[in-house]
């Protein structure tokens, strides 16, 4: 059985202080205007326990928007790989975001392992937190984003006004928790309280749900290649890539190089990219294998609902609802699109 401890809120400032001596510590906090984000912890910063969703996806910390991969010297003909992997703690990740990180872990490890990602990941401690509120556009509970039982070092569940049940996921996590001093093993009653708290959170998220079992999604898509749904929405697409860039599971990047003004030294870097951008599928000879908005729009849903599933047995969407908000055209909602396709294709299993 998982080791669990009971931790009190009053112990937290001391823990945060100690952790931040060795780690860059990020916690959920207000980003103004009713938005939240993971922010660097500093003395006195108020943790937003009731945050609904972090505005930016956690992939920022593991696959930064722009990352240097190689530094080269054109005079000496030398090139050095660059690996940056700051020690960091991501505190308060909701389960759907944890699920997204677990997915990235698998995808970055497969094929030729992405060393830059893996080193950052290794240096990153993840402390998950059960949500107390749900963003109005989220639908994670109907898509398997509510129960995530691996990938964390510690998992926090608020069980009282000032107490938490903390489940241990790794020796590193337990060690960090010990900085609080003597640990109090959780009682059966505390574990029961945590179980109920989780159920409450999942119930909250159920107001936005898929109309069918999420595992059917690849088959629903398989019947929908020629659906009129694609055109209906794609005419509004601005090809802005926002839906890709805010998605915690999207990981595409472009690699470019830049030399200094004297053309002596330079760097190769990677930068987030997205399949919704018009030039994403542009290859040599000026051939674009997804030239139309409809092609790109459909492709994203096939990525989310079929291609990733075919690889790892999970949907490439964890239901965080970020893309739904980020799309200024109001067309990036996987929940409504999947539901429409299901209804249209005869609601059959």
């Amino acid at each position, binding site marked *: 059985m998982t080791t669990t401890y009971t931790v009190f809120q009053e112990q937290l400032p001391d823990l945060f202080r100690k952790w931040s001596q060795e780690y860059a510590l990020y916690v959920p906090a207000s980003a103004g205007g009713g938005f939240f984000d993971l922010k660097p912890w500093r003395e006195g910063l108020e943790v937003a326990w009731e945050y609904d969703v972090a505005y930016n996806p956690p992939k920022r910390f593991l696959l930064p*928007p722009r990352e240097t991969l190689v530094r080269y010297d054109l005079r000496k003909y030398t090139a050095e790989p660059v690996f940056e992997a700051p020690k960091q703690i991501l505190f308060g990740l909701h389960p759907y975001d944890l699920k997204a990180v677990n997915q990235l872990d698998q995808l970055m490890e497969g094929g030729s392992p992405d060393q830059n990602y893996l080193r950052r990941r290794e240096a990153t401690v993840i402390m998950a937190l059960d949500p107390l509120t749900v963003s109005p556009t989220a639908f994670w509970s109907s898509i398997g984003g509510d129960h995530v039982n691996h990938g964390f070092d510690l998992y926090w569940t608020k069980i009282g006004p000032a107490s938490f049940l903390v489940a241990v996921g790794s020796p590193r996590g337990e060690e960090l928790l010990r900085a609080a001093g003597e640990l109090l093993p959780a009682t059966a009653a505390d574990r029961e309280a945590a179980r109920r708290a989780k159920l409450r959170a999942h119930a909250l998220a159920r107001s936005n749900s898929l109309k069918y079992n999420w595992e059917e999604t690849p088959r629903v898509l398989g019947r929908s290649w020629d659906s009129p749904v694609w055109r209906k929405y794609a*005419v509004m*697409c601005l090809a802005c*890539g*926002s839906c890709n*860039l*805010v998605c915690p599971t999207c990981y595409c990047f472009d690699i470019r190089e830049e030399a200094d*003004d004297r053309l002596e030294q330079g760097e190769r870097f990677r930068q987030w990219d997205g399949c919704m951008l*018009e030039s994403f599928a542009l290859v040599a000879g000026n051939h674009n294998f997804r030239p139309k908005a409809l092609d790109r729009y459909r492709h994203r849903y096939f990525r989310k609902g079929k291609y990733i599933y075919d690889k790892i047995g999970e949907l490439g969407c964890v239901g965080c609802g970020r893309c739904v908000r980020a799309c200024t*055209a109001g067309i990036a909602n996987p929940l409504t699109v999947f539901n429409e396709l299901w209804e249209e294709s005869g609601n059959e299993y």
Partner: protein
Amino acid sequence: MTAKPKIAFFDFAGCEGDQLQVANLEERLLDILGHVEVVNFREVATRSGQDYDIAFVEGSVTRPADEERLRQIRAQAKVLVALGACACIGGVNCLKNFMSENVYREEVYGPSARWYPTAPARPLKAVVKVDAEVPGCPVDAAEFARVVKEVLLGKAPWLPDWPVCVECKLAGNICRFEMGRMCLGIITRAGCGACCVTEGAHCWGCRGLVPGANLDSARIVLDRTGQDRKAVQDLLRFYLGDTAATL
């Protein structure tokens, strides 16, 4: 191109803010200028020559006489680079295209207005062939440096062909539309790092339309913010007056 190409700067209707921005590059400029000879650059040297290979042209065409002068520059230059919003897309000068000519002529020239013929403001490319563009109001100094390097190397200068939203997301900004505000990042060419949004404002479209901009959708998206027609139109006309965005 010869080892040390001669470059010259020219300005039409504009504020010379772009030349200033280039002059601000200081150290970097010296490195780049090591590869060129500047024969005409008001912000850097007083020397003035007429023999040049690469012409950097700032400002938009607003008077009949401008057209002739621009054609002469084009005839002389091997490479013509448009510098800044006014030169690339007409920019704020195009605001006058939506006003009565009598009104703006009097506003600008006062009682002697009738001695100064003017015409609708236009970007350089409406009159001559432009080989490369450095967009923005003002231009981004780093981008200017890069485009110059590319021109010197004989490469086709590259500009991002995706909207400002991409860079806005990289920066982690909260989208203005989610705050109930308007923003032209959805149809504007990236390359500035979405600096205006990062600074708390919104995108005005100063870098011009992104290739393939979906104007029909943008219009609906802007209208959905609940702003009145006039406010949407004003925003679209501020920089994008020479494009179909204002229709």
